[in-house]
């Protein structure tokens, strides 16, 4: 008994030490966001200080933070809704009406996700330039939707596959038509799956930083691109950078924590559950 307790204590110390070291940069960023610019660069680093919201106020007032945040919301939610709209019927038919071609289609969709974005940077850039989609929310929304579509279809498919067949059979016996089947049986059973698929898609779009850096400049720039503008060497604004960063990652960090189990499924295409 005593030995297991001391083992547990040692494990606790070790695991918490590692967890705190890994989390430290995020903790430090949050702490720095409440400092003045002077304290932010102080050596030795100051752990105790008078917290101030000055950094937040300045980011909100000067840098037009709200516009960039709204862009992020529009682009990630918009692309997710569009992807779901197209993916739900596709995943439904693959899971419930499988044909000999289903397997091939699914694997082909997975393979489109393997196309490196940088490999098609030039064509996408030129198409966007010619269609006037550079630095537009529409353009970025479309790219994110297509980027996440394979993952969304896959994840929905694995959730739909989990719906017990017996329930559907019973529904059919009771004379439920396709529409009724979808509305009264499938929707309630698969809504949690659809919701977590949507959340994963929002998270991936929110954090995407290849297309956002290359296809937007100011009007349609989401938070990933806005934060990147802090990388210029002129002057150090660590408190403002930290405040903007904290606001940019907080919602997604919370969503990520909530959906970590489902994320594993989506990110590994069902290979690890």
């Amino acid at each position, binding site marked *: 008994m005593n030995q297991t307790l001391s083992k547990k204590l040692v*494990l*606790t110390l070790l*695991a918490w030490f*590692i*967890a705190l070291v*890994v989390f*430290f*940069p*995020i903790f*430090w*960023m949050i702490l*720095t966001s409440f400092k003045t610019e002077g304290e932010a*660069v102080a*050596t*030795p680093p100051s752990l105790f200080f008078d917290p101030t919201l000055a950094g937040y106020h300045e980011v909100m007032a000067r840098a037009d933070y709200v516009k960039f945040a709204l862009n992020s919301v529009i682009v990630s939610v918009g692309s997710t809704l569009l992807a779901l709209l*197209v993916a739900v*019927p*596709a995943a439904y*038919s693959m899971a419930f009406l*499988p*044909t000999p071609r*289903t397997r091939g289609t*699914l*694997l082909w*969709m*997975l393979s489109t996700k*393997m*196309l*490196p974005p*940088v*490999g*098609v*940077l*030039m*064509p996408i850039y*030129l*198409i966007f330039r010619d269609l006037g989609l550079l630095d537009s929310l529409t353009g970025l929304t479309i790219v994110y939707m*297509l980027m996440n*579509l394979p993952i969304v279809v896959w994840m929905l498919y694995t959730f739909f596959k989990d719906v017990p067949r017996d329930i559907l059979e019973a529904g059919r016996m009771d004379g439920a038509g396709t529409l009724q089947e979808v509305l009264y049986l499938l929707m309630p059973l698969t809504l949690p799956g659809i919701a977590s698929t949507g959340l994963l898609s929002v998270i991936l779009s*929110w*954090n995407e*930083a*290849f297309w956002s*850096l*290359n296809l937007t400049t100011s009007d349609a720039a989401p938070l990933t691109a806005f*934060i*990147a503008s802090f*990388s210029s060497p002129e002057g150090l604004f*660590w408190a403002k950078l*930290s405040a903007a960063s904290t606001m940019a990652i907080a919602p*997604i960090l919370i969503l*990520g*924590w909530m959906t970590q*189990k489902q994320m594993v499924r989506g*990110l*590994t295409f*069902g*290979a*690890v*559950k």
Partner: protein
Amino acid sequence: MRDRASGRTVGGMRTLFLQAPAVSMLLLWMLVPLGMTLWFSFQRYNLLNPMISGFAGLDNYTYLLTDPALWTAMGNTLLLVGWVLAITVVGGTLLAVLFQQEFFGRGIARLLVIAPFFVMPTVSALIWKNMMMHPVNGVLAWLFNLFGFHAVDWFSSLPLTSIVIIVSWEWLPFALLILLTAIQSLDDDQVEAARMDGAGPIAIFWFITLPHLKRAISVVIMIEMIFLLTIFAEIFVTTSGGPGLASTNLAYLIYIRALLDFDVGGASAGGVIAIILANIVAIFLVRTVAKNLET
């Protein structure tokens, strides 16, 4: 009972109708840019100089393949992918075993340790660049001085190492998250039986846990490779590929050719090389997933 043959055609029609939007969109998304990249890679095409045009044959490829910059970038890509994989897979496996044990506050400790994966790449890179690795005011500089070492100017003297540290920090939680999920399906009875037979913790890890995690580890390696091959934002906001080409990887080199030099032909030839590299990895990943897929 429905007639088999007609059932199939009705099903087939419905399938076609339901899948057509998703399939056609992805088909367009894949084929059009891919075709254009291939086409451009054989063209003389520079946005800054409209006078240059026409069929280039293999010139873009010859130019690219004989350019030492490409080989530097390829070497950096390999180093980056290799080191990050080694750190995150070994670290992730060990941490998965540790965070699987019973200890106080396990739930919260797990949340803290997976957090970096949800931080957007530009934020991760800038926190590290400024608050952690700044040669004068960074936390690491302060720590180094505290223990009597000289502070390191990370991004000018160890640019690639710095990128490896940042990217590993982002992807270690991913490996941990996947492997922690996989380790939970390990059969407790089997471990208990091994312990009864006198197996120590190292033997249990080596002969039971590790084989159990084999497939999950291979999935982690392949998914990470796909993303790591084209790491971009972290380099963009920290070193811009420098000093010189010291931290330029293939993705960043193509970006330079494409959106700084506007050399469409050269960038596309680079793109084709990136696509070929990614596909070599992708074949293995698709196979692993296919083995696991029941339709």
